[in-house]
């Protein structure tokens, strides 16, 4: 067992570094830049039952040490993801991939998750109940414990693969939501999705984003992510995948100290496409520096 080996819901991955959904496409843009098989796994672009263009542009705004996005779940729909994207993905990535699933109703979540659960390349289903950029769906499932539990249970009942539920930080008590998902059968929790934010354009006097608000990510949110991972890891028995602003091997170790068994890396992929490869290389060096032998035993 390598010193970075991590057991993620019964599947052993080579290291705990996982590019987060929405920042890594289906992998092949990054495969042009480096061999992405060095990754533990990655979570592919959030998939819905129907194809979606997403929100109007502008969808991106810069913030201090971060960015806002309001992409709004652009994706070709689950049928095309399976028929067109997964074959291309499998050519460049030979490990199990994490399938990120979104929806606008319980039925849609179940439909999409079930389809992807049947794909051999898929190792885990990550249920995104926390997208802040779509109205009448996404995040609303992640801000009420009852709704979060209901959709978790409905999906869990149908699928065979491990179910990871991705939580929103835009809540009063993250532990309440996490415990509800655990109780409903989630095999792991991943968090944090983005914090809702906005920016204005002083020239036009209007919000920069066409969608008005967007999700804040990047180093700015890292302290909030650490706190919520810490709270969640202390509240549930299932594994917690930490994410939110991680940009360095040191950040990864802080997340581990907060209680994360693995980490997802999001916005940092967009500003430095090599960041996940670099972190995987640096992690053992930084672990040496701080006297950490094995990732899992830290």
């Amino acid at each position: 067992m390598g010193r970075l080996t991590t057991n993620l819901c019964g599947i052993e991955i080579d290291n705990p570094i996982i590019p987060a959904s929405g920042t890594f496409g289906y992998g092949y843009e990054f495969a042009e830049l480096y061999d992405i098989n060095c990754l533990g796994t990655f979570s592919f672009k959030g998939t819905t039952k129907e194809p979606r263009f997403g929100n109007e542009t502008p969808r991106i705004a810069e913030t201090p040490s971060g960015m806002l996005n309001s992409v709004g779940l652009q994706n070709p729909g689950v049928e095309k993801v399976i028929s067109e994207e997964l074959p291309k993905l499998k050519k460049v990535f030979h490990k199990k991939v994490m399938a990120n699933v979104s929806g606008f109703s319980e039925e849609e979540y179940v439909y999409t998750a079930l389809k992807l659960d049947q794909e051999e390349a898929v190792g885990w289903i990550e249920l995104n109940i926390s997208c802040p950029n779509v109205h009448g769906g996404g995040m609303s499932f992640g801000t009420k414990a009852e709704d979060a539990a209901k959709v978790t249970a409905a999906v869990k009942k149908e699928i065979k693969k491990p179910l990871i539920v991705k939580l929103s930080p835009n809540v009063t008590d993250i532990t309440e939501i996490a415990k509800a998902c655990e109780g409903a059968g989630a095999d792991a929790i991943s968090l944090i999705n983005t914090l809702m934010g906005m920016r204005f354009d002083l020239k036009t006097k209007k919000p920069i984003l066409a969608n008005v608000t967007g999700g804040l990510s990047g180093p700015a949110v890292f302290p909030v992510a650490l706190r919520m991972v810490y709270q969640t890891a202390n509240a549930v028995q299932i594994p917690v995948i930490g994410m939110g602003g991680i940009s360095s091997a040191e950040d990864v170790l802080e997340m581990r100290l907060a209680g994360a068994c693995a980490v997802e890396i999001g916005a940092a992929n967009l500003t430095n496409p090599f960041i996940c490869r670099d972190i995987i290389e640096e992690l053992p060096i930084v672990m040496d520096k701080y006297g950490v032998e094995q990732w899992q035993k830290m």
Partner: protein
Amino acid sequence: MVLEGDCSQITSPGQFVNIHLPGFYLRRPISVCDLEGDQLTLIYKTVGKGTAYMAERKTGETLLLLTGLGNGYDLSCAGSKPLLVGGGAGVPPMYFLAKRLCAEGKTVHVIMGFNRQDEIFFEEEFKKLGCRVTVTTVDGSYGKKGFVTDALPENYSYVYTCGPEPMLKAVYKAVQTEGQFSFEERMGCGFGACMGCSCRTLTGYKRICKDGPVLRKEEILWED
């Protein structure tokens, strides 16, 4: 700004580089104005804090950038008498394009549109390449008064253009030939990962940063 480094990823005019600036989270995409060997020329307008930071760089400093981004223009469609239309910040990529087209022996006509005389740049550089150059200014302070579309010639084989969206739209409506149009959008990554700069086209959804910034006239779908 002139930079030196490995530019082997830059294969076509119309491509851009994405510059990391310390203290700014997102990179700044700037179109390639000229490339000679490993020497890269970028021309940009100081509009915000990021470009102000760029303008303050001194000779000898190092910047980190991703190069060769975007599809760039397809030169094979140019025909014998291509027309290049650049507006304001859309002029620089026209220079790299004109240089390549001139090197192929094409008869290149460049129309450059500006608001005022004091914004004009690169007129002489285009002439030195052997291009026919027409300058328009909105206020008439130099060249032909009006917009680039007021200066379209009778006869041209193909159109390449880059500039603000209203100009692109006007050019789209005014030109008779096929052509290639370069678009701008606020970008996240600049290499096709984040879907931050998507647009609808007649041939499906495209990412301005990866599938663009150059779209062919026949696929453009104006949104409003």
